[in-house]
């Protein structure tokens, strides 16, 4: 009896189906993300993608989806598709901006903690542990109350909470890498600490950082839309997928399409980013997820 047959999982069938499915799924997810980003950027540049302006009201109020209004119209006769495209600029840029904040601040914080080690590390990490004691959304809501619920306020609230995971990750990576031989060599060469961090430690830790950022984008989009939905995030006239879903919720019984379309965009976007994150994690280290 060979050892392979004793394994609990038959390896022959193992990777094949997964790999077969994984690549196209990840590719599809990246394609969708690319498309959504293009739409958001075109909308930011002010290019008209539909026949209507985002705030253009009309006589045709609460129309079901039709040829002239693909996704229907709201109670002021505004075209829903136009508003979703307009909302994508807020929803998607919030996702990316929060990831950027997490990257800049979280990496700096984690790098200092991991590189310095000792007391500095303990002090910096205890601060994070304390903030971790409360759930993200709760802290975001409390911060949102103080900084206000405008676009900037929400961005600040999401940014202030989201960097901590990245900081933890960077610190762990640095602690692990710090004792590698090439870092010792760099030290022996007499390089300044910041140069070691930027030139040697960071490039070696960048893979996991990127994967974690890929997961921050969807969770920020999710958090913004959830906050807006329960009335503690953005509110009209601001227009994001969350506020659109929140407006649609009121007429779930009579005009279900008003909540259906924004929800679908949120779901597909979040799902695509999560799939991309999974795919990247796999590509980076096939051992992580067997």
């Amino acid at each position: 009896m060979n050892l392979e047959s004793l394994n609990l999982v038959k390896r022959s069938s193992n990777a094949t189906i997964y790999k077969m499915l994984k690549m196209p799924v990840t590719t599809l997810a990246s394609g969708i993300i690319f498309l959504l980003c293009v739409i958001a950027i075109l909308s930011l540049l002010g290019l008209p993608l539909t026949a209507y302006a985002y705030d253009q009201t009309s006589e045709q109020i609460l129309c079901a989806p039709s040829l002239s209004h693909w996704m229907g119209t709201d109670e002021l006769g505004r075209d829903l598709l136009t508003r979703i495209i307009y909302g994508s600029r807020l929803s998607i840029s919030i996702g990316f901006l929060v990831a950027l904040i997490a990257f800049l601040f979280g990496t700096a914080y984690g790098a200092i903690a991991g590189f310095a080690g000792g007391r500095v590390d303990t002090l910096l990490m205890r601060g994070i542990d304390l903030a971790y004691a409360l759930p993200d959304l709760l802290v975001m809501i409390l911060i949102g109350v103080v900084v206000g619920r405008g676009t900037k306020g929400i961005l600040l609230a999401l940014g202030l909470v989201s960097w901590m995971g990245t900081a933890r990750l960077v610190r762990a990576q640095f602690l692990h890498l710090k004792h590698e031989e090439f870092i010792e060599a760099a030290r022996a060469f007499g390089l300044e600490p910041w140069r070691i961090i930027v030139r040697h430690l960071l490039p070696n830790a960048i893979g996991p950082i990127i994967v974690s950022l890929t997961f921050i984008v969807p969770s920020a989009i999710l958090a913004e839309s959830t906050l807006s939905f329960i009335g503690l995030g953005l509110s009209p006239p601001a227009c994001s997928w969350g506020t659109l879903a929140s407006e649609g919720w009121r007429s779930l019984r009579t005009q279900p399409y008003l909540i259906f379309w924004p929800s679908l965009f949120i779901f597909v976007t979040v799902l695509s980013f999560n799939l991309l994150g999974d795919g990247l994690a796999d590509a980076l280290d096939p051992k992580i997820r067997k």
Partner: protein
Amino acid sequence: MFRLVVRRILLMLPLLWLIATATFLLMRLLPGGPFDAEKNLPPEIMANLKAKYHLDRPLLEQYGYYLQRLVKGDLGMSYKYLDRSVNDILSNAFPVSLVLGTVALILAISVGMPLGVVAATRRGTIVDALCMAVSTIGVSLPGFVMGALLIFVFGIWLKILPVALWESGWHIILPAITLACGPTAYIARLTRVSILQVFEMDWVRTARIKGQSYQQTIIKHVLRNALIPIVTVFGPLTAIIITGSFVVEYIYAIPGMGRFFVTAVSNRDYDLVVGTTLIFAVLLIVANTLVDIAYHMLDPRIQVDTL
């Protein structure tokens, strides 16, 4: 073991004090007071209202009053639901949320764990791919979308379940499913990874070499060991359930802690916000402490650090 419990409980106090102070400061630092909505109040009445709630005193003095009250277990008065104390509101709301949260948690465990086990034992097959697809969808579906979908299908379209409120056993079904959705996906993923890690262990191979059957090895050796790490997620799960309740109780109009928290925040009802936050913090700290203790009991090799 006893020392561990005592030490954990003693550690809870400074943590609670920190959270209480931070929440107090957050609430007082913000522009606008709880009585701003009542626009046309004469200045005398406004002054009286503020005096009643000590809002006219210096911040430090307010903080003193606040800590005194907290030590006595009094969370203060609601500024919006007049004649109701925060204790009164929360003692009514807490059981509602507890029931909903517990049902959702049980649902999530009883669906998520088998899903993870099935996926892990059929690793790499179409079954595994399907289980993981379901769980990725579960993670990506916002609570309000799931809620709206369920309400639309079962409440409005099929008309077989109530769409909102908290009255009979039937009213619990849709909110519990909505709330369980995220945790189920989370547990399924974790169970799968945990089992796959145990599969790699040498003693699993030993058990097979000994001549034990596949099923027996899974049940006797793999599951027992794989389920230990899953206990640790009880802490994060409590957090997911709490934040989930904000949305679920909002859309199903359930008079629980989550909904009171959300309305209190938009009403700037300071004491109610702080009171709810403190209860949530206590819940989370208790959950994490229980996890540490359970972990220690299940696997004595693990040394639990002192925070």
